[in-house]
């Protein structure tokens, strides 16, 4: 049996990992956004192949990612085994077997919804990006995929979101409304009341799909 790892914090020994005092919030979530971090190992010789795939990605899978419309920002970062930042001094140089890919995402909805949607809609794209990682089971069937993501995911300690009440769909709708309103304000400025009423109805019809309250985030898992 492995000995328990213990660490000293503020003069008290704790089992590791510990519950940090004051850390009662769910730091992976801020409003309607979830911060995901996942790290996967790759054999070094696969890295150039994957980098080439990412270079070509805008020509292939990006349209699906945009159409799904539930990710504010995402990034894939490949760090070669010898390229972890080294600042000299007493910091040891990394001596790793694998290169690593770290995936960061800011998505809307729950973890299960996100993984389900990825698996159902983007499985080809996901397989293209992750098949180079060790022991990646494929995005379908979803059960093995979820197990793998849960294994390679690590938690966010602090997450800031400037508009926690908004999904990425809300953001896109808001910019469409802003543009339509600016345009309508200009074109309707000199209208008679009767002409304004007619133009206003047309304006509302144009923007109605983008209207709606910016309510609180739903709860889920």
């Amino acid at each position, binding site marked *: 049996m492995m000995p328990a790892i213990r660490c000293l914090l503020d003069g008290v020994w704790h089992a590791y990992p510990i519950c940090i005092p004051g850390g009662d919030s769910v730091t992976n979530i801020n409003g309607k956004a979830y911060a995901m971090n996942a790290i996967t190992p790759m054999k070094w010789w696969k890295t150039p192949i994957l980098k080439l795939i990412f270079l070509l*990605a805008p020509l292939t899978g990006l349209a699906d990612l945009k159409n799904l419309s539930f990710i504010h*920002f995402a990034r894939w970062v490949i760090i070669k085994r010898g390229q972890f930042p080294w600042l000299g001094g007493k910091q040891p140089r990394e001596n790793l077997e694998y290169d690593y890919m770290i995936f960061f995402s*800011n998505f809307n909805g729950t973890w299960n919804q996100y993984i389900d949607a990825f698996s159902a809609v983007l499985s080809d794209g996901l397989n293209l990006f992750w098949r180079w990682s060790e022991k990646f089971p494929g995005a379908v069937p979803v059960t093995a995929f979820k197990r793998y993501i849960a294994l390679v995911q690590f938690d*966010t300690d602090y997450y*800031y979101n400037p508009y926690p009440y908004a999904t990425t769909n809300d953001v896109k709708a808001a910019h469409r409304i*802003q543009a339509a309103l600016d345009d309508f304000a200009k074109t309707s400025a000199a209208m008679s009341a009767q002409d304004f009423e007619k133009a206003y109805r047309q304006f*509302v019809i144009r923007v109605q799909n983008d209207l709606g309250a910016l309510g609180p985030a739903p709860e889920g898992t």
Partner: protein
Amino acid sequence: MANQSGQLYGLTILSPIINNGSRSASQDLALRKHLSSLANGVHSPFARVAGTHFARLVVMNDVVFVGNPSKIDHLGSQYLIFTTDFDGDLDAYLRTMAQSIPAELDQIWKHCVGYPGAADAGKFADYMKKCQVETTFYFADVNDKTRDQTLKALQVKAELSAFVEENQGRPAAELQRAFQGLLTKINSTPPPAPGASRV
């Protein structure tokens, strides 16, 4: 450039955490404790850094072992990962960070190897760039609007949605006057504060 999408920049920083066995509290735990109590929402330090969309701080203790027959790897250092999505240019942003929230940055990065402090914005920017790792592929769903433009647009969406609901069936002249009032209100009201929990 892979770090950028439109006018958005995706910065990824891995700062090695000091490994000093003689201290009473390990640096990664002390850092985690500090991050757990760091203010968020409108009081977040990142709300005061112009152009910041999302930001996160993550203590990475080690890499992951995915099971046999893979080999077991261990990192020589623990890393503080910092990612942010911001408007514009890297150098200008790092200097803005150092000038806007120097004390908060020092409290976070004092646990990291070689951190020079944020009092000298130039040294701070140089340090952060030494710790930067290149993003391989960056996706920004809306990449042609600044944070402030987005906050204003969200305010407009909320105001217009309420206006449409409240003014159904109004006579034409009243509707027109009310609409002018809406425009005046939108133009005279500042956008919601970054990090606010509602519009």
